[in-house]
């Protein structure tokens, strides 16, 4: 009886495991942002001159396809400095023509950590696409091995039912252009986002992030590759509602690092050339038109200087 029961159980499991295995495999080919960015670097490795690191502010705000140099936008939503460093380390020796790394540091970058934050599901994608291990010791986490588990259930459903890719229309250089959302409560959108980001911040992450930022710069300098630190623009409503003490801490640290390594720092955080309507969410993500404008400013301010 035991044997018969086990055979039945085995058949039961196999019937569900086989289709799940194929579904899981099909997710590996989903055009996710991680895959597109990886393809950009790996397919153009001999030509890439500029790479952009950072979180969504750079991911949406720096239109790498509009730069005159061959570039890849390797920034991604909630990407922390640890992952910036790991990506640079992984690829830097395979990019013989690389001249400039633009590292975007937002208000919250130094005081947040992807692995411990609300979007820590993203760490599985770094493992799957780039073989970058997170800083947590969780070898038995199923999301490291299964795409179905790693993707949020919402994305799986969208893909299975409507074949909607996991991310929006990212171009081949890794830039994720945003279109403007509906105009509701424009005046408080920045406030909400600033408070949300402040709520995520914790000073305990500063030391770790400083170490990885130092390492990133040292890795680049050792190969004569220039690094420029920038802070992307946000709306007035956003910058007026950040925690002034945290903001000052962030500026002090970046300026100290900038001096220590003699890397330039361009702070566009309160840049008056950008108004609330220039942002897709009326808070901290530039829309596509203004991302092009911002990229043009970067080109004039330092890219041309550093490349030529």
């Amino acid at each position, binding site marked *: *009886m*035991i044997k*018969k*029961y086990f055979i039945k159980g085995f058949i*039961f499991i196999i*019937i*569900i495991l086989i289709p*799940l295995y194929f579904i899981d495999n099909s997710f590996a080919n989903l055009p996710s942002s991680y895959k597109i960015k990886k393809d950009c670097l790996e397919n153009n490795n001999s030509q890439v001159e500029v790479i952009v690191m950072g979180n969504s502010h750079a991911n949406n705000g720096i239109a790498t396809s509009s730069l005159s140099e061959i570039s890849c936008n390797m920034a991604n939503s909630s990407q922390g400095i640890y992952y910036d460093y790991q990506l640079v380390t992984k690829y830097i020796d395979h990019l013989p023509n690389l001249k400039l790394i633009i590292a975007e540091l937002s208000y919250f970058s130094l005081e947040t950590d992807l692995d411990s934050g*609300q979007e820590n*599901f993203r760490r599985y994608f770094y493992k799957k696409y780039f073989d970058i291990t997170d800083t947590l010791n969780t070898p*038995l*986490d*199923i*999301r490291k091995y299964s795409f*179905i*588990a790693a993707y*949020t*259930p*919402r994305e*799986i*459903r969208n893909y*299975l039912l409507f074949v909607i890719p996991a991310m929006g229309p990212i171009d081949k250089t890794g830039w994720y252009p945003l279109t403007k*959302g*509906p105009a*509701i*409560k424009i005046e*408080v*959108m920045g406030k*909400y*986002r600033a408070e*949300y980001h402040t*709520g995520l911040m914790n000073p305990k992450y500063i030391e770790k992030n400083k170490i990885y930022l130092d390492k990133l710069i040292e890795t680049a300098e050792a190969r004569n590759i220039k690094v420029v630190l920038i802070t992307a623009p946000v709306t007035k409503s956003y910058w007026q509602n950040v925690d002034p003490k945290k903001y000052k801490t962030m500026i002090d640290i970046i300026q100290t690092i900038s001096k220590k390594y003699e890397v330039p720092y361009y702070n566009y955080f309160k840049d008056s050339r950008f108004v609330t309507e220039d942002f897709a*969410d009326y808070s901290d993500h530039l829309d596509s038109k203004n991302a092009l404008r911002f990229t043009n400013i970067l080109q004039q301010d330092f890219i041309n200087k550093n490349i030529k």
Partner: protein
Amino acid sequence: MLFNSVQFFIFFPIVTFLYFVSSQKVRTFILIIASCLFYIMFIPKYLLVILLLVVIDYWAGLFIFNAKNNKRKYFLIISIVTNLSILCFFKYFDFLSINLFKVTDYLHVTYLIPSYLRQLIVSIENQNILLPLGISFHTFQSMSYTIEVYRKRIKPEKNIFIYALYVLFYPQLVAGPIERPYNLLPQLHKKQTFDSERITSGLRLMLWGFFKKMVVADRLAALVNPIYNVPSKFDSTTLVIATYFFAFQIYADFSGYTDIARGAARVMGFKLMLNFNLPYIATSIKDFWKRWHISLSTWFRDYLYIPLGGSKVARWKWLIIVMIVFSLSGLWHGSSGKYLIWGAYNGLLILLSVLVGKFIDLIKLRILANNWYIKIIQIIIIFNLVSLGWIFFRARTLFDAVLIIKKIFIHPEFNFDRIIHFSTIPSSSPILNFGIDSLEILISLIAIIILITVETLVYRFGLRKMFTERSLLFRWAVYYAIILFIIFFAAYESYQFIYFQF
């Protein structure tokens, strides 16, 4: 080890397989080792605390049985004091010491605490001792053993390994049900056979538990947590919605855990007691407590309420007993004023329900009680009263709970437009800053409806029997549907079971 973890999906089949292929003698050791492994995955060193309790209560049981006259009582007292001391040290030390300092400061009698004692208390506080997981569950289970031996309802267990397994048995070790010795101990002696129907039934119960935990509870947690973590930022409408969601979250979470525990035990042939019986269809508050966390409410009934006199005492004494029992049951959940208030609130509801019952008798309305529409009204009232109590239970602090109550009842700012457009307003709605959209909320609501419908059909209309009589193809199709539903609709951020903290 969490039930909803990869570790458990490896652990459970291996332990079950080893259990069935081993002889009866070896089975006890397999389950003890498995239970220890299960526990040390949380905080290894605290296994020593349980083992200490096992040894003390095992010997206490034997001494109580062999002693004569008053000596029996002394041994029982030693056992109970030891259990409660360990529980109090880990669970209530900070709460008691902080309040002791506050009270003596307030009354200007700080000299009552000698400086060496004050230093000792502060140094213990500074150790930041973590609470051993499930300590409230296994201390209560241990105490029920020595009390039942004292009452001569059972004979003491002579085999220390069987007794150890009674306390350590992994399915119910960290969150119950709080078993009684006369139910579990005889089962641990009995040779369990391989019964395919029973095993399937156990696996089915586990599957349903996973659905409740991963699809209903964890989804709702993602909605409730951001709101209850900063209630000051949300309006009355959002707080009311979050409170109703929490009512279902805690039910799905705790009863889901119990289902997995009972299912895992059933697979191996053990029948653990029922812990929930459709609590949200209760038509009175007394009825609710007969259906909610049954193993704890009956523990308090058997070992505290009845020994204190139960309902056979003067009315004023009974009122005090009810308030004591419910306040203590509140404190059982944690060393915080909010749990005390939650317990006292439930005691007060019991007292009020008696008064209301007397009034109904007086105006001869009892006859209406059998009408279905009256029953529905009663269910709605009780659900709302219970949900009101959950505010104290879920709020991070008593201050937060008062704030939420004030926002809902004293300064209500209900924005019904917010309900209609609950999830369609882009991130101007604070809840959406956490990445929740209308589809996610809709799925959560559908999951709640599935939960209520299936459980009502199972408990009230014999769905289980109807289901097992259907063809294999049909049953497998249903199992696959539930598994796929869990895979595609679960919240993968695995939250710990709420009752692990108690």
